[in-house]
């Protein structure tokens, strides 16, 4: 029976905060900085002598494959085998995916995998793959969101990561209230298709032993991938093992198994030896998933003193026929007060690659727009944008006023941020501040993202040497999971951090929450907490203590006047405990969310309209912070990616041929060192007992929420130019720049 979390957490050993809550260096840091942390494609240690697979992507966006001519490739030096989509019946899809990964003659999107060529070396596999000739029967497709939006229909949608809802949701009478409101705003905005562009390409080494396959891969959600691979290969789950001890970035792009895993498995079976496959960088943008572009309309009505009386947020995005909408309106249901509300999501059918989760799906593009609209509305009202947000704070779910937030200190974030940033010195009139060649502007925005809790399990071992080993299929995708999991076990078992070993990412370990939707840190450590409670019971029993009054401190177990070294409990052999935490109704009874405030200073070159971010500050309220050092890194990472969304990131759509044109890291621009200034992050001192025994909440996606709008609002404050089509590239500013003084 898993531990049930259905009453608020009371005092527990985590509250000691001897190890948890400290800004500890990452325990995996020495491996990452020396290049000794093994990533998927690098497992010479466990999969020797692999052959190399090279993936060929479709050269059309929609249609059928008539024939794949592999004769020349077969004659190529080093050739071992080839598996084509025409040799393979269409395979089942992975969990939560709209696009098929392989098999059959139908092409759903550009660069869909159509063959994998296996050869002795990488160079030979690549050369052989280029000898393949493909006959296509292309069909007309729909690739232009603006055109298809006209016929898009309302649909329900769920990001699976904490944002979702019906196609249309209403509270009160929005239209009537908006018509009566003395001050109104009605604007339409667009956000671009974006690519995760994680640094490690999707990669897998597959090795079969009889009818069992092991996949050393790069995946955020081991249990999902485990189940998906069994389904795709048509074999029992027991016969599949996934191992992802290190994941070189994911951001949602590795939530699901992708073509690398499927093709490595098929190719290894065909070749009769281990095969390694990495998606080449130019394949990734079109072969995998992306954050879909949106067209969003926001209407706000308010009284002259700045009370919102009507708020509507509608979003249209596109996807493949079985795909979901981008849930960009979700935060608007919860962020601000207002009696009359409307949110709507429409979905257009597009034949572009699959749109799916990317860091803070829904909120990232949704807040990019909502928080610019709030800035515009504040200006109409003649109100300071910080004050406008404070005036419309709500402590209850505006859709269900009887339902409170478990803890909500958005106002605290706004006030502290304004003070630390020096917001009072900002000139509210745009285009007034000059620093040499730079027009200087200041902008802010609120950050909001729901806190999800997901069932999570772990196994904990106490060795004869007193070392505590944690095993869970939780992944560390850069988030710091290794460290906070070890901190949790150290705190629970009363041992120093150095006496804990964390082993992650293996499907042979208990199923965890996995890494997604900023639910991983809190949920997975809560699962480790549960397993440690069991281990403490086992230790107490072995030592003849009452588990309820035994204290685990300094490597010892104490009760009354008796003290015994912890390791003694394992003197007759290792003690092993396993448990999971399961979350009850608390998360429905009260709304659990995380909050923040972003403040940004930009300079815009008076002649070239080049935008430079000069200062960034985020204040976050996200429950107990388990490790302020790695949590801060999560937030600055979000701030960086959000700056990219505001200023440069855009997958350019070829609306005729139907693909993302700039499908590599030269064409798809992401922030580099020179784009990002020193970033400051402040965490409010909180602990939320409604969330978990850890009293923590998610923080991995809060940093990206709203930050893009703060950048955009700063650009407006600097120039007086309100750009509503993101990213704000300089071509959108240049012809409207203020006359140089």
């Amino acid at each position, binding site marked *: 029976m898993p531990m049930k979390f259905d009453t608020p957490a009371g005092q527990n050993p985590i509250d000691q905060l001897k190890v948890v809550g400290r800004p500890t260096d990452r325990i995996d840091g*020495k491996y*990452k900085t*020396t290049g000794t942390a093994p990533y998927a*494609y690098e497992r010479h240690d466990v999969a020797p002598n692999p052959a190399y697979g090279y993936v060929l992507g479709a050269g059309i966006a929609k249609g059928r494959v008539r024939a794949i001519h592999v004769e020349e490739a077969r004659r190529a030096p080093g050739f071992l085998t080839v598996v084509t989509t025409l040799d393979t019946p269409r395979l089942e899809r992975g969990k939560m995916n709209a696009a098929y990964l392989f098999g059959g003659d139908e092409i759903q999107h550009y660069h869909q995998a159509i063959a994998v060529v296996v050869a002795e070396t990488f160079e030979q596999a690549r050369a052989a793959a280029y000898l393949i000739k493909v006959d296509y029967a292309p069909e007309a497709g729909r690739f232009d969101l603006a055109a298809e939006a006209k016929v898009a229909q309302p649909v329900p949608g769920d990001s699976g990561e904490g944002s979702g809802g019906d196609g249309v949701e209403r509270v009160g009478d929005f239209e009537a209230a908006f018509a009566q409101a003395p001050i109104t705003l009605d604007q339409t905005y667009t956000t671009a298709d974006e690519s995760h562009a994680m*640094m490690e390409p999707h990669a897998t080494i597959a090795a079969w032993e009889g009818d069992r396959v092991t996949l050393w891969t790069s995946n955020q959600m081991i249990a999902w991938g485990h189940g998906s691979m069994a389904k795709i290969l048509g074999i029992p789950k027991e016969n599949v093992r996934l191992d992802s001890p290190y994941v070189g970035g994911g951001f949602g792009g590795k939530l699901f198994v992708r073509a690398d895993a499927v093709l490595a498995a098929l190719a290894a079976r065909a070749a009769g030896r281990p095969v390694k496959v990495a998606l080449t960088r130019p394949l990734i943008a079109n072969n995998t998933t992306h954050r879909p572009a949106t067209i969003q309309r926001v209407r706000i009505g308010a009284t002259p003193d700045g009370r919102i009386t009507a708020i509507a947020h509608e979003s249209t995005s596109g996807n493949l026929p079985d795909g979901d909408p981008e849930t960009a309106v979700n935060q608007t249901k919860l962020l601000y007060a207002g009696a009359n509300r409307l949110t709507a999501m429409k979905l257009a059918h597009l034949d572009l690659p699959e749109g799916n989760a990317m860091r803070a799906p829904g909120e990232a593009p949704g807040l990019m727009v909502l928080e610019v609209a709030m800035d515009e509305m504040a200006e109409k009202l003649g109100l300071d944008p910080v004050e406008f947000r404070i005036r419309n704070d709500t402590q209850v779910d505006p859709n269900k006023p009887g339902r409170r937030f478990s803890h909500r200190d958005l106002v605290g974030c706004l006030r502290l941020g304004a003070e630390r940033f020096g917001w009072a010195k900002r000139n509210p009139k745009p285009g007034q501040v000059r620093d040499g060649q730079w027009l200087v502007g200041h902008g802010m925005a609120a950050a909001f993202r729901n806190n999800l809790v997901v069932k999570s399990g772990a196994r904990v071992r106490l060795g004869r040497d007193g070392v505590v080993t944690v095993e869970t299929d939780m992944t560390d995708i850069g988030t710091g999971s290794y460290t906070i999991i070890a901190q949790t076990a150290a705190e629970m078992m009363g041992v120093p951090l150095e006496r804990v070993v964390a082993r992650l990412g293996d499907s042979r370990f208990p199923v965890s929450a996995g890494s997604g939707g900023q639910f991983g840190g809190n949920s997975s450590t809560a699962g480790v907490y549960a397993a440690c409670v069991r281990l403490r019971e086992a230790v107490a029993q072995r030592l003849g203590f009452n588990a309820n009054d035994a204290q685990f401190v300094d490597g010892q177990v104490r009760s009354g006047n008796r003290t015994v070294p912890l390791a003694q409990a394992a003197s007759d052999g290792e003690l092993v405990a396993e448990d999971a935490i399961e979350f009850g109704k608390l998360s429905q009874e009260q709304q659990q969310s995380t909050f923040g405030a972003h403040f940004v200073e930009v300079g815009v070159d008076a002649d070239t309209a080049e935008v430079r971010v000069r200062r960034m500050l985020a204040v976050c309220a996200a429950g107990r912070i388990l490790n302020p050092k790695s949590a*801060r890194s999560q937030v600055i990472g979000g701030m960086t990616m959000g700056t990219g969304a505001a200023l440069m990131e855009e997958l350019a759509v070829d609306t005729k041929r139907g693909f993302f044109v700039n499908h590599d*890291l030269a064409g798809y621009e992401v922030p580099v060192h020179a784009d*990002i200034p020193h970033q400051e992050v402040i965490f409010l001192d909180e602990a939320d007992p409604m969330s978990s025994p850890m009293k923590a909440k998610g923080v991995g996606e809060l940093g990206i929420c709203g930050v893009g709008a703060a950048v955009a609002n700063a650009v407006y404050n600097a120039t007086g130019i309100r750009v509503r089509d993101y990213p704000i590239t300089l071509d959108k500013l240049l012809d409207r720049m203020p006359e140089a003084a």
Partner: protein
Amino acid sequence: MVGASATAALAAVPSAAGAQPARTGEPVLAKVAFTMNGQRRELELDTRTSLLDAAREHLHLTGSKKGCDHGQCGACTMIVDGRRINACLTLAIMHQGAEITTIEGLGQPDSLHPMQAAFVKHDGYQCGYCTPGQICSGVAMLDEIKAGIPSHVTADLTAPVAVTEAEIRERMSGNICRCGAYSNIVEAMTEVAGRRA
């Protein structure tokens, strides 16, 4: 140096295209010898093999990462004859006689290079995949500043180059970190630069 590598490349071509003509596309092999992390390495490689793949696939030195294979991300950065390069953009056989340092040559988990230790201290990474490239690049970058090599943001080309955050950010912009650890990476490098001075 240039002569040596040219000779090696020339010597390889006749042997492959000699008495028995190769099949179309038959790989041309060539011998190359260089020093990597203080160790002399001799390899016979398909001439198409990048320096990066020679390290990762042939020498099993996987610390240098393949992020793009196109010179767009910097994850593969190695220090070759004292200068940082993208190892994915250069063929292994072009480096006959070279002195090459990869991340493994800078330090090991129990004996970190000061730059590696500074990255741990300042949390200058997240997923870790760009990290070896950032560190190799950073070490060589500080040497470039010390040698007086100017950058795009150097205002005075005649004065010694100062180690400023602007200089570091400009010079490190070929190393992408998608996790967004830049702010911490610059802190780590600034600290190491200060210690050096």
